[in-house]
């Protein structure tokens, strides 16, 4: 892939000593449970707050949200109370968003062209490239206005180089205004100590798989592999963390007793339980066909766990030398890669790369493209 020409983004003149104002649409933070895009939004806001060089305000549906309420939600780790306040008090005390300030959307926009300066984040283009893995309403939601959103953006932030490359393939006119915004992992303080003070989970030898159960996650490759003679008799179990998603009707019911013995589905778990399950795993398995970024892989690396990953989209750029890769459509390659990463010598070889790789992804790196856009980088 040839690199697209990188041009300098327009930056506004800023009065000496004044912080430039930036409004972030924190709509995703109004959700009760934060996974995926809400977590991305939280990390972005926290990275910008920590940097301190922009004057942040917040909005949702073109309504300004009180900064104190948003910051409280960040502290709570849930949007339940922020949403309650919005629903109960908007009439009496909320104001429309200041459309004169630059507006940053951590996900797709509900409406384009509100502010003269807008930026949005494209996480992936799977609704375009693999719509059969989504329900029609989701495809329509993401695709109907994408071209208009991109056209109205001064800056298009992509969750990974993979997303940037894929987006430019289909929308080459956006090339000059795209930047990559890699996110980072930030486990809550205290998790490590709490885990240290608890007994090790009695789960035997296991690998961990993290993500909503849906077709794109490609769990079927694991099922196929478990029926191979060379894997059938292994004592390695697979703990699959994540809620049941879409288009998987019958998937769980179709599991054989032997597969059920080896696969443990936890459903949705708390961040701390996820932390512990990753921390005590041998390694992570990430067989997805396609990811915009793949934050669970980075979570595993941050806890010193190598990743057995599909050779697809963003995985090589996120996991680097701390993983073993396979063709996500080949059960033979998957089985060979599994045997490779299970070998103690290979696992020991990979482990030193894990935390170094995770350390490349920092709040400063995440905030940088937004700060460059604001003219303060």
């Amino acid at each position: 892939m040839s690199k697209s020409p990188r041009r300098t983004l327009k930056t506004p003149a800023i009065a000496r000593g004044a912080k430039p104002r930036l409004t972030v649409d924190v709509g995703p933070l109004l959700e009760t449970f934060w996974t995926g895009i809400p977590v991305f939004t939280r990390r972005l806001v926290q990275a910008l707050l920590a940097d301190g060089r922009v004057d942040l305000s917040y909005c949702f549906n073109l309504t300004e949200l009180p900064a104190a309420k948003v910051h409280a939600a960040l502290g709570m780790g849930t949007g339940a109370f922020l949403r309650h306040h919005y629903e109960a008090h908007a009439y009496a005390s909320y104001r429309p968003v200041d459309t004169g300030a630059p507006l940053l959307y951590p996900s797709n926009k509900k409406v384009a062209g509100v502010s003269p300066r807008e930026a949005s984040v494209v996480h992936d283009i799977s609704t375009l490239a693999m719509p059969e893995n989504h329900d029609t309403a989701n495809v329509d939601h993401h695709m109907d206005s994408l071209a208009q959103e991109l056209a109205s953006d001064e800056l298009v932030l992509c969750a990974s180089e993979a997303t940037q490359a894929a987006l430019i393939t289909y929308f080459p006119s956006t090339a000059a205004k795209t930047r990559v915004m890699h996110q980072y992992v930030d486990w809550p303080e205290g998790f490590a100590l709490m885990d240290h003070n608890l007994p090790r989970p009695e789960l035997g030898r296991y690998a961990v798989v993290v993500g909503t159960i849906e077709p794109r996650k490609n769990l079927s490759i694991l099922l196929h592999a478990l029926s191979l003679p060379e894997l059938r008799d292994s004592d390695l179990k697979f703990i699959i963390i994540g809620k049941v998603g879409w288009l998987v009707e019958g998937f769980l019911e179709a599991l054989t007793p032997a597969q059920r013995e080896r696969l443990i589905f936890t459903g949705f778990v708390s961040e701390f339980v996820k932390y512990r399950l990753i921390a005590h795993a041998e390694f992570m398995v990430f067989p997805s066909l396609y990811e915009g970024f793949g934050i669970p892989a980075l979570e595993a690396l941050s806890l010193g766990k190598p990743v057995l990953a599909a050779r697809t989209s963003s995985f090589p750029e996120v996991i680097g030398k701390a993983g073993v890769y396979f063709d996500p459509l080949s059960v033979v390659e998957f089985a060979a890669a599994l045997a490779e990463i299970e070998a103690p010598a290979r696992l020991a070889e990979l482990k030193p790369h894990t935390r170094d790789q995770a350390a490349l992804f920092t709040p400063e790196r995440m905030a940088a493209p937004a700060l460059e856009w604001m003219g303060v980088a």
Partner: protein
Amino acid sequence: MLFDKGLAVSLPAREFAHAPPQGALWEAEAVLRQNLPGGLRAAVQLLRDHVEAAGRPLIFILRPEIFTHGESLAWLNARLGEIEDHLSLSDGVVVHLLPGRRNHLFFYRSSQAEAVAALKRLTVRVPELAPQLVSQVNCCLGFSAGKTKYTPRPVLLQATGQAFAGMASFREFYFNDCGIEDSVARSELAGDLPADVLARYGEITYIPITDVAAADPGFNRYLAQRIRVALGTPERLLLLGAPLAAGKEDTIPRMLTRLLRGLLEHGGVLPRAVLRNVVIATALLDAADLPDAKLELVVPEGFEFWRLPRGYYSRFAKISVALPLHRAVPPELLAMLTAAFGFSPEIVWFDPPPGGIRAGENDDE
């Protein structure tokens, strides 16, 4: 020469949901061993016959979207070697582009109304997609990107040799304007007409109706008029090919329903009687079975002309292409059809439906 260094072909993933997990790269024979809909199978066979048979490499890619950049794209590039051309076998829902290669389109479902609608929707949603297509195989679709019109260069790849062995059966045409169900039920009860029913006529006009045409109000008005004309020419046979939908699980009652519903909704008045010189064919007519008749072929929109060898068309004394009045016929399309048929077709224009031209319809094939 076309694809002179070989060809990489993207497969439509939804047709391979139950394929064995044997990898992202497939050979033609492995693809053909899968349970494929007819149009896709024909397209794969065509590519095999044109590319592989010429000694050039042909590699099919399942899920090309996973090869975005960096290491994954390098892995694919290493396996594609010197192949410079990539063709997306498109169902209309997805058109794949492969970075760094010349991208081509083969829309193999052009006979299907919902696939045509999906492709239109896609090119509106992604206006920069079509201008990146170097050519389109067996299509002449025009796309709009803002104010710019763009028609990727049409390329003809046509089947060669014997296409089929005459599997059509024939049904009488009975139209009950009070109940399509009654029409279909009576047809089922009457069963097939004798195989020699066509041999009684010295002149036959054959209209193989497509799913796209069956859904077009203007075409149904044209078709109904052809049927009314047939009332006054009992010595001539009007043979209507029933429209096939998805291809995998279609049945004769469903095909008949699709045909008759279009006529009921848009065709106007037709006699509620069995019309002896109007017959329905349930599959493609083998013209070689009618050596003595004077044959005319009327091709509606979406007809997959490329699936038949040129020899098939040589049996017809006249070939017409039926198009709505507002539809442009670019010279490239006429040239492609002329090459496919072996002689120049006549264009038959029919009036668009009342209410005028629908938005976005004036620049397509």
